[in-house]
């Protein structure tokens, strides 16, 4: 089975049809997707700002990273699940959309980013807080996080405009 024929099959499944043809389902799922980006994307931004030394100086990196970790995870799951549902109702369009594939590539990079910086940054916040100045590795992690984050928003928004 080719990827395209899988997309064709997926589009005709009951779930795909329900989201596509139900008048309110699509905007509601889209709204939850956006809300999760706002609530939890903002938390990612706050942590990045702190590690880049742009602000939040009264909060320790530890408090920001571990104090918000649960919510970032919950938010991430909500964004991914609602995003999958949105893609589910028009997989053929996604298959042909350049922006969709760019976004998927960026998502893979987000996963890699989390893995690569896990030990040195995200599970090492107490050492970061004790360092006299923010270590370069944490700045790099935060800068890349910001770029990936913005890239996901742009590529996601562009999917709707790909023809």
């Amino acid at each position, binding site marked *: 089975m080719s990827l395209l024929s899988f997309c064709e099959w997926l589009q005709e499944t009951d779930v795909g049809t329900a989201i596509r043809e139900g*008048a309110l389902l*699509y*905007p509601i799922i*889209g*709204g939850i997707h*956006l*809300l999760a*980006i*706002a*609530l*939890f*994307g*903002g*938390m990612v*931004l*706050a942590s990045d*700002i702190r590690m880049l030394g742009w*602000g*939040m*100086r*009264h*909060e320790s990196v530890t*408090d*920001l990273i571990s*104090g*918000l970790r*649960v*919510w970032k995870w919950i938010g991430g799951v909500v964004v991914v699940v609602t995003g999958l549902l949105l893609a589910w109702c028009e997989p053929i369009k996604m298959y042909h959309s350049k922006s969709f594939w760019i976004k998927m590539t960026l998502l893979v990079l987000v996963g890699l980013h989390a893995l690569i910086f896990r030990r040195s940054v995200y599970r090492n916040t107490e050492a970061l807080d004790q360092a006299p100045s923010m270590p370069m590795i944490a700045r790099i992690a935060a800068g890349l996080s910001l770029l990936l984050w*913005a890239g996901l*928003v*742009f590529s996601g*928004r*562009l999917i*709707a*405009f790909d023809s």
Partner: protein
Amino acid sequence: MTVPEFMQWLSTSPVANAMNGPEWAFPMVESLHFIGFAFLIGTIAIVDFRMLGLAMRRQPVAQIASDLAPWTRIGLAMMLITGPMMFSADAVTYSVNPSFRLKMIFLAIAILYNFTLHRMAVRSEKPGAVGMLAAVVSLLLWTSVLGAGRMIAFV
């Protein structure tokens, strides 16, 4: 100049022409609008989660709020620039769109609330139960702004 005349003029203004020019213009501005609301609503939500006792409990509410305030303002500024830019692109249609009108009402209330009652709760010595109520109202208001905004494209 009447309101409909103003909308007509706006939708042929240089900004509107730029927005309706290259096909990437609108999605680019819209993406900036999304990034703006992540700053605006995201930073407010962190304060609200804190007042609800759900995050960052080791820091005082007022401290978190004052450190986040510049980023909230940056978010608000982004929204107030990109929003009218998108509006101008199709001003006549948007101005009579019921979701758009609802969004503007929610937005006015949310902004007013954020800089008055919400601010008082955030700055109080021990926000406690009042703070929790203030946080819930805040989250509901911003969710309403976002929800009504999402519906503009569907009504």
